[in-house]
């Protein structure tokens, strides 16, 4: 920093969210017993204010990097700010009725959600590996707590523990990778690393490559790509459903954001080394994720494997040039966030008296009983399959289009991707079959959809269709954001 005054404006969104988290905790503490604290409205208010500050940063002055270049508010990080805050807001809307139905109305839930959001915001705006690691831990530790919040359910406990152990494992890889890169380049700043990796001496090259590989392992855990995916099905299944939705949409977006920034802005000089690795990860993720999802009868496990498969689709674009890849991946992350929040949200919205739809056949005849919800869930599933006129199709089109642009390796990736999409159609459609083509079983025991949940699901479904029909504006934004990455 050269200026006399410390300009902290780029940190405004994260600061607002963090303060809101503290306020939520305090309000909870000072609310008399037996009364409900207004945690959800407060959280929403804070997220809205943070979104407002993102808007101000995006349209006005105040951008740039702070804290000795550790964090930045460039177009790329602002794009992800908006995405992550949107994901958090939708999760908050979906939460109250789910928490009530499962007897876990506690203010900590919202506080943890907000703290985790702060971590995600930091993750996508870090220009320096140590602060990136700190942000990663802020995000993860809050999530470990959220996963285990349903104290009475053993699955929830198991989920939290598994997530914590594997998460810690991944963090170790990550740190080791940072250390090796530091050893090879003498810096943890992405800008400086970018400068030194292009002129590496032959002795330090293996060090750098190993460091990059370990970073990739760390990211692989976070985005749940095969072979670092083992935790995902258990954690997704055990965690409270709204938390699962938040994890699958938010963590994936933030981790991919950081991955893009680190690899495309700091390590493009080593692209020839890491791109084949990424290609392999993409292929095994798509194949294993989709084939394993075929065998699932549990809805949440199926969506967990589908999330692994989608990490694979996203990685296919990563082999392309940074601008093309970034643009396609940013668009896809938005589409995927809307769809996944919607899918998990629809399951959460049906929850009642500690029960929620777990197996595919629990949804039998849903179209007769909750026509609007069934229609929305169908939109999400169709989008996950990648069929027009949904955001999922346009997203896949760009991802595979980006991959194809690099030649035969990309074409191979795209071919695996489309073939696996066909496989995925089978298990997604099974849910549609249950909802529309099977007779309802037994009494209608699912809960009524609360207005807040209905609103959140309607927003997600509308966004899914809108992006499918009119993707140009978001695509233009994604392009601007991706461009700031390579400057």
């Amino acid at each position, binding site marked *: 920093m050269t200026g006399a005054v410390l300009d902290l404006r780029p940190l405004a969104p994260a600061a607002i969210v963090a303060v809101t988290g503290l306020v939520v905790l305090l309000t909870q503490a000072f609310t008399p017993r037996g009364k409900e604290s207004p945690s959800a409205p407060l959280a929403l208010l804070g997220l809205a204010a943070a979104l407002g500050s993102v808007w101000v940063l995006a349209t006005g002055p105040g951008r740039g990097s702070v804290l000795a270049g550790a964090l930045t508010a460039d177009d790329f990080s602002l794009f992800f700010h908006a995405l992550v805050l949107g994901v958090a807001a939708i999760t908050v809307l979906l939460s109250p009725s789910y928490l009530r139905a499962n007897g876990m109305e506690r203010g900590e839930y919202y506080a943890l959600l907000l703290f985790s959001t702060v971590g995600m915001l930091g993750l996508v705006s870090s220009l320096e590996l140590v602060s990136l690691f700190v942000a990663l831990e802020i995000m993860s530790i809050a999530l470990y707590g959220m996963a285990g919040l349903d104290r009475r359910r053993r699955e929830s406990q198991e989920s939290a523990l598994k997530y914590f152990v594997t998460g810690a494992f991944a963090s170790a890889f990550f740190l080791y990778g940072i250390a090796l890169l530091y050893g090879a380049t003498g810096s943890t700043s992405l800008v400086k690393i970018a400068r030194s990796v292009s002129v590496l001496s032959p002795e330090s090259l293996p060090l750098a490559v190993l460091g990059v590989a370990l970073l990739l392992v760390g990211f692989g855990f976070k985005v749940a790509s095969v072979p670092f995916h083992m935790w995902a099905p258990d954690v997704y299944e055990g965690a409270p459903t709204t938390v699962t939705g938040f994890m699958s949409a938010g963590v994936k977006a933030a981790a991919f954001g950081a991955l893009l920034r680190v690899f495309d802005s700091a390590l493009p000089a080593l692209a020839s080394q890491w791109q084949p690795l990424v290609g392999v990860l993409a292929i095994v993720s798509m194949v294993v994720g989709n084939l394993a999802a075929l065998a699932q009868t549990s809805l949440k496990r199926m969506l967990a494997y589908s999330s692994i498969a989608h990490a694979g689709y996203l990685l296919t674009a990563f082999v392309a040039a940074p601008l093309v890849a970034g*643009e396609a991946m940013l668009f896809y992350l938005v589409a995927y966030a809307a769809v996944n929040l919607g899918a998990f949200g629809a399951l959460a919205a049906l929850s009642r008296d500690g029960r929620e739809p777990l197996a595919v056949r629990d949804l039998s005849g849903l*179209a007769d009983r909750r026509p609007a919800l069934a229609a929305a869930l169908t939109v999400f599933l*169709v989008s996950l399959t990648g*069929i*027009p*006129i949904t955001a999922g*199709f346009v997203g896949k*089109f*760009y991802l*595979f*289009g980006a991959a*194809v*642009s690099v030649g035969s390796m990309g*074409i191979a990736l*795209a*071919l695996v991707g*489309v*073939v696996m*999409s*066909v496989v995925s*159609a*089978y298990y997604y*459609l099974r849910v549609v*079959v249950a909802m*529309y*083509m099977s007779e309802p079983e037994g009494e209608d025991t699912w809960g009524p959809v609360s207005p807040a949940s209905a609103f959140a699901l309607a927003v997600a479904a509308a966004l899914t269709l809108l992006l499918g029909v009119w*993707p*140009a504006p978001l*695509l*233009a934004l994604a*392009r601007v954001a991706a461009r700031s990455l390579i400057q």
Partner: protein
Amino acid sequence: MNTHLLSLLVLLPVAGAVLVALTGRGSESLQKAIGLAVSGATFALSLLLVAGFQDVATLQFVEQRPWIPAWGISYHVGIDGLSLWLVILTTFLTPLCLLGSWSSIEKRVREFVVFMLLLEAGMIGVFVALDLFLFYVFWEAMLIPMYFLIGVWGHERRIYAAIKFFLYTFAGSVLMLVAFLVLYKNAGLGSFDIPKLVAAPVDPALQTWLFLACAVAFAIKVPMWPFHTWLPDAHVEAPTAGSVILAGVLLKMGGYGFLRLAIPLFPDAAMRFAPLVGVLAVIGIVYGALVSLVQPDLKKLVAYSSVSHLGFVMLGIAAFTTTGVVGSVYQMLSHGISTGALFFLVGMLYDRRHTRQIAEFGGLKAIMPWYFAVFLLISLSSIAVPGTNGFVGEFLILVGSWSFSPWMVAVSSLGVILAAGYVLWMVKRVFYGEVTNPKNQGLPDLSAREAAVLVPLVVLAIVMGVASPAFTRRIEPSVDALVRQVRERSSPVRAADTVPPPARPPGEVRP
């Protein structure tokens, strides 16, 4: 008006679907009425296309506006002689389907009407799209309503059939998507515009792969032997309206895809693979006919006969002479009319008796004379008796394919004879003889509503049989231009080892 006519045709059914979706659960008559009114209005509107169509090869009613500029994707629609009548066929059959299902669809009427209208919009979209991305969007989006039509309102094995239909067609089309992306990147035009891409040459080695990827997608849709196995299940399990749309329109998209995309985009590969396509077509003709011969189930018989009839379409396309291709387009239309009508007729019988087994019937001629009359006439048109629509298409195809391969024509003619066999034998078993099954006594003849569905089809079957030039003169200029363009492009003088272009076959019969 003319510049937006095609967009209106796509949007009107969508608007209707939204309107129906907003109605309440109880108002089923209203939902059906809206569906019928909207699809009827769409048909009326589509007739403006016929009125304003010039008998030239150029694209007409063109509308183009940017859609996703970053990728050079535009909303580009237009029609020529290849697509004009297919659009009309779509708008013509949809209201008939809604009318025909008036009383046979009892559950979830609202959803049924919504899906029918969305399906109509998708089908029209496929035929008018002039941008690869737009084409693919319509092509795929259409799968969803069809999947629901089969899966929700179908017969006993409907779920199996729906999933099989979906996976088969989806598998074919995703390969096509990759081919489009590779083509986009290779052409280097930064555009998905079909006319622009057709004008740009593609490396012959690459053409092979891209052609194969597209050809598989279209061959599944046609369906060509051996990609036909989804068809009997889907056709038999679908409700009547679904079967009519499947046979009447959806199958045509395969043939249309060959003519609009696969052949003009990859002319070298198309000409190289023409013999293979021809052989598969001939196998399909004979195979479909033989299997039809032994079907105990009426609907299955009609379904397999489609494999045979569509084999003729593909033979004409493989031959790729002007006469042959005009015949193929004509055969697509007339198959839509005849087979559509046959599915309606079988459906009406099923509504009365809840069986489709031929053995359950016999002697219906005396009980349902009007039904019999219509059935016989449509059967004759299906087996291509001169004076009916079927004859014109098959005749043009056989004549046009002679220069391509006389032996293929000879073997295909066998299919014509077999068709007469399986159809007339079926008619004999269902309608002639004594009434052996007491359940058939007192079956009501055609109702006014059923007659209203069938009469337009019967009239068209005859009009298309005797007044074919009214149709072919609009098809021919476009086909002729296409054939010339592809033949020129596929036999360039750039290499010494390429064979000289085959001269246009002498003595071609003008339709």
